[in-house]
């Protein structure tokens, strides 16, 4: 029964993703139809269909709108997969890169790189800086919130508060010290936006997204066993500590690269895996596939909304996900409270 439902949901999401991509490419100041979008994409893929529009709309679709769609899709995938990994490693559905401060750490790293003018290799220098900061934040949270093989949820969340506060202060300092141009760029980050994405920025995100997805699928069965706790997982032959360290590194990569180019898009890693667990169950192989797809769908459509909700302006996408994710987080807390008296 579950596998039937899984198939249905995955197919539906694939369809939603495809429609979302086309709709996202249609919406904008320049009027183009779905035919022109599909024609442009097919033309780029090497098929001459005769649907391709003139050069101007074709270029607008391919060089302005498609990178933005691709970025939304990939960032959604990265953040959702990072959420699954973090929850698997901590054995807790509340662990999420945004909540525990990893995203804020990455944003600080990226902001420092921008303010300092590290532009080496296009977007890569910023991405590397975001990754390093994300990794540092991850390891800090990890070592602080774990004791004797167990995660204390309260400590995890309190550590998140501390890391978030510290990263915010750091961001404020960079803003204060930075030039006007870098200030503007950094303010955008704190809100999260897909605006101005270019293919050269999409590339590193795509590379990391594919690597992250492959890694997670390879260790999915080990994540399942990890749900039994560190000791039992070890008794079943899982090398727990190396698995955790590798997972944290990949998780920091996924978060770092997503944050470096689009800013803080919070709660995706929390909402998506939780929703997918209800649909496909807790097994990590299907959970990762479902979450990757759902994350992509969510951000592609959120970006469409961000561009159409208020006429003529581009809402920050991070604002949208937080508007959805904040209440959802509260719902999770209340649910856990009524079920087991909260987290002690």
């Amino acid at each position, binding site marked *: 029964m579950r596998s039937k439902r899984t198939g249905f949901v995955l197919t539906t999401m694939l369809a939603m993703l495809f429609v979302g991509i086309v709709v996202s490419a249609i919406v904008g100041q320049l009027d183009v139809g779905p035919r022109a979008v599909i024609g442009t994409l097919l033309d780029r893929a090497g098929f001459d269909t005769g649907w391709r529009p003139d050069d101007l709309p074709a270029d607008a679709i391919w060089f302005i709108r498609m990178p933005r769609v691709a970025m939304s899709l990939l960032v959604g995938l990265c953040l959702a997969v990072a959420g699954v990994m973090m929850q698997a490693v901590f054995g807790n559905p509340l662990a999420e890169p945004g909540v525990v401060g990893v995203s804020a750490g990455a944003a600080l790293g990226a902001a420092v790189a921008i303010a300092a003018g590290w532009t080496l290799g296009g977007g890569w220098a910023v991405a590397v800086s975001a990754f390093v900061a994300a990794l540092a934040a991850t390891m800090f949270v990890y070592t602080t919130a774990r004791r004797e093989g167990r995660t204390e949820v309260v400590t995890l969340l309190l550590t998140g508060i501390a890391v978030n506060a510290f990263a915010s202060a750091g961001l404020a300092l960079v803003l204060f010290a930075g030039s006007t141009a870098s200030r503007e760029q950094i303010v955008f980050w704190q809100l999260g936006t897909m605006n101005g994405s270019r293919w050269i920025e999409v590339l590193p995100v795509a590379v990391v997204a594919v690597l992250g997805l492959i890694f997670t699928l390879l260790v999915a069965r080990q994540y399942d066993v990890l749900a039994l706790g560190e000791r039992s997982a070890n008794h079943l*032959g899982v090398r727990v500590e190396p698995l955790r360290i590798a997972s944290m590194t990949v998780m920091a990569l996924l978060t770092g690269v997503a944050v470096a180019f689009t800013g803080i898009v919070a709660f995706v890693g929390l909402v998506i895996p939780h929703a997918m667990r209800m649909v496909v169950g807790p097994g990590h192989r299907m959970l990762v596939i479902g979450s990757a797809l759902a994350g992509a769908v969510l951000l592609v459509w959120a970006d469409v909304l961000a561009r159409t909700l208020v006429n003529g302006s581009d809402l920050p996408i991070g604002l949208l996900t937080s508007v959805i994710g904040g209440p959802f987080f509260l719902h999770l807390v209340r649910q856990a409270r009524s079920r087991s008296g909260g987290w002690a």
Partner: protein
Amino acid sequence: MTHVWDLADVSCRLGGVDILDGVALQVDAGRLVAMVGPNGAGKSTLLGVLAGDLAIARGTALLDGRDLSSWTPRDLARRRSVLPQSYEVSFGFSVREVVAMGRFPWTSADDVGRDEQIIADALEQTDTAHLADRVFRTLSGGERARVSLARVLTQDTEVVLLDEPTAALDLRHTEEVLGLARGLVAAGRTVVVVAHDLSLASAYADDLVVVDHGRVVAHGAPADVLTPELIRDTYGLAVEVHQVRDRLVVIPAVKKHH
């Protein structure tokens, strides 16, 4: 013949305290060994050493004649299984999924049909088949204990370590679980179980290992080991040991207050 386990002069420190201090212990194949002793004696630590979880500070600990620290996690997982004291499962895994996790060490070596059979047998043996589709976290303590035991059986190892498997169980399931342990031994496997109930341990075990103050103070057949003197010396309580039918029964020798 090599022993399954051969521990000589094993010491183990946790948090700066000597939990085990010069333990010597040999366990042979095809035995059901019960480890008993007062609270804090070091039983669980000794079990951790046997399982290969804990690094030892001094001495040698061999499994199949090989130093425990030289085993890879995968090889160990195919040789010994461990039922821990607490049964926690994160996320909403079903009973069947949890039990199937016991097949993890064998995934690359076996075919699916055999896996299914082993899982079904384990559910049957632990009286948990009717729980198969329930979510583990919604089970009672006793049900969790039995499902966790089923997961251990599914690992299908020659050597089985059980840390207080009956602590959460009612009378019938207690007898059934220990009967199950006897069944494993009858099939040639080796079982080490940490127990609190001396009468129960002596009824089912081939050998009793008495642990006190981080040492093995007695090791032998229950009838030889379980003397009022030894129990008084280790537990600090005067007792009487009676034979009721084929079982030894230990009761406190304290006089009634009124």
